[in-house]
């Protein structure tokens, strides 16, 4: 079930806040790798042509989505093992907008932190990529991702985790990621992370009436290498991007984990409690048998 991720996440968040609120400042704000590349998506420029979706399927050899609506052929409604990027629509009187979803390539990714085998890692240019030889299929990455990105091939006998890898094989050959290459309006552009951030702020400065005054991903969730700009009267939450706060997502995870084991109090009390229960049962049995 899809919504589990969010609820679980909330629970973890609440527990983490209660247990280890004190160490909030302990985690350092992560910096992107020096060679970091990224995507800048400008919702005011997107025309909803889905060229990126088509190109993404082509270069990644993604099969057609067997689950679609209205009998349409290959019409993904959300990210799945068959679609690494999906263009969705937001309807609002006088301010309709499109939004492209794909992996955000977080600077401090929750999936990388959650992956016990190191299958998911930030590799060249800071792209979060998946190494099938290390994956054990636990799908913790899918549960922990605040953007609901990594997807599992449920229908396959040898399933993979499918997610946008910023076209790492193409980039290694010196080519552009497919979505940025085909976009007819440069709504999605690929480039050096620092340049994109500068460009985004430039756009906000030159056309303040056009944009929502924020670059999503600059700080959100500790920063993401995919940056978003939205229309003046459309918030990022309208576009389906969660309000994460500025702390990196793994920070919360770490706080929970470290909090539980702090001073070894929780394990000791747990084992003490269990011992008490066992001891009582034994004494009861002895009495019965006696």
């Amino acid at each position: 079930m899809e919504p589990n991720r969010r609820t679980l996440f909330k629970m973890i968040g609440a527990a983490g806040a209660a247990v280890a609120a004190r160490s909030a400042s302990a985690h350092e704000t992560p910096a992107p790798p020096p060679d970091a590349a990224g995507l800048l998506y400008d919702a005011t420029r997107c025309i909803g042509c889905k060229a990126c979706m088509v190109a993404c399927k082509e270069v990644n050899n993604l099969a057609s989505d067997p689950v679609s609506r209205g009998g349409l052929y290959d019409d993904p409604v959300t990210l799945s093992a068959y679609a690494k990027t999906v263009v969705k629509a937001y309807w609002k009187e006088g301010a309709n907008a499109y939004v492209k979803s794909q992996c955000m390539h977080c600077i401090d990714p929750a999936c990388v932190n959650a992956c016990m085998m190191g299958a998911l890692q930030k590799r060249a240019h800071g792209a979060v990529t998946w190494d099938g030889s290390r994956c054990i299929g636990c799908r913790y990455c899918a549960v922990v991702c605040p953007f609901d990105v990594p997807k599992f091939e449920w229908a396959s006998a040898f399933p993979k985790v499918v997610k946008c890898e910023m076209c790492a094989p193409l980039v290694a050959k010196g080519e552009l990621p497919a979505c940025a290459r085909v976009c007819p309006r440069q709504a999605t552009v690929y480039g050096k992370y620092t340049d994109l951030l500068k460009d985004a702020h430039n756009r906000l400065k030159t056309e303040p009436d056009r944009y929502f005054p924020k670059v999503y991903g600059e700080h959100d969730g500790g920063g993401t290498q995919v940056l978003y700009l939205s229309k003046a009267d459309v918030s990022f939450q309208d576009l389906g991007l969660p309000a994460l706060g500025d702390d990196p997502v793994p920070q919360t995870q770490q706080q929970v984990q470290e909090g539980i084991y702090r001073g070894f109090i929780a394990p000791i009390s747990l084992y003490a409690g269990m011992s008490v229960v066992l001891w009582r049962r034994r004494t009861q049995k002895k009495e019965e048998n006696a």
Partner: protein
Amino acid sequence: MTEFEAGKNGRKTTGRRAGVERRDFLKIVTMAAASLGLPAAEAASIAKGVAKGLKPSVIWLHFQECTGCTESLLRVSHPGVAELILDLVSLDYHETLFAAAGYQAEDALHSAMSQNPGKYICVVEGSIPVNENGIYCKVAGRTALDIMKEVGSNAGAIIAIGSCASWGGVQSSGPNPTGAKGVPEILKMQGISKPVVTLPGCPANAYNFLGVALQYVTLGKLPSLDALGRPMFAYGRLVHSVCPRRAHFNEGRFAQKFGDEGHRSGYCLYKLGCKGPVTHANCSVQHFDDVVGAWPIGIGHPCVGCTEKSQAFTVPMFTTADIPNPQPSWLFPPVNPNRAPMSPMSTGVGGLVGGALLGAGLMVSKKITSAAKEEKKEEGEHGA
């Protein structure tokens, strides 16, 4: 056929002299009705009106323009321009089509105005300069401003044909040294409140003009107009909405440059600068001058947005169009699927049901264990 012979100014409106049979005439009128988007039955009322000699008197003024709109009009064939000016309208003044010249032409203008005050259709082609009191455009020693004031204030209706007359056209884009303006603006300046229909386009589609003019004379009213004075029947939809290449847009197939594989395969021209998504016009369904495919996108050129003041002559021809408020198809997945959020009531009910089940389970398990214990006890007693 006598009813067809009664013409104005002793001129025969139709009949053998003009080479038009009744059958042909009705055909022409039917086509005219069709171009208006009227049902075939309305063709009869148009025919009746025209036959009664109610041909609208048309005074056609030329100001700052290239005569492209007239040239476009000359090339229509359904009906042809000969039928148009001889049978359907009484074109009393038109500088390009006039045989007369000089004083004779000026006399024609004044007699047309005095014979049909408040009834004639004033068609304006071209923008009107206002800088230096309008000295940049003069006809017969008078400025365009003066002529517009005189002819416009006595007209029944005014049709601004072409982008120049509609808002100023190419002359009005920066730096606009002559101060070129469109007819609606000029009339507002001069305090003339007459119904104005604007038919922007570079050139305007002649059928849209014909439709408006004939509707005015036969039904006595102008078609419904949008906020910019453009008839809804022609400018009510975006070129993009009814574009034959739309499927390519929806699938993200774009011609990348002129002459490439995609361009030759008829892919969408958006990336080459097509302004179709922001341009209201009917060119995609009503091609120019009856030549199939005779419209920009039909010949492989992006729409230049000639009917839109915000696009034509301001946004460079090959710059991609900005779409301020796109209209996503309902097939698009919504950002947030319409899952009904859990109401407090349903949460409460769910909690109660869950709790009851849990309690029941606990009780059942207790009963089972106590029953088992008792059995054991009994077994023990028997065994003892």
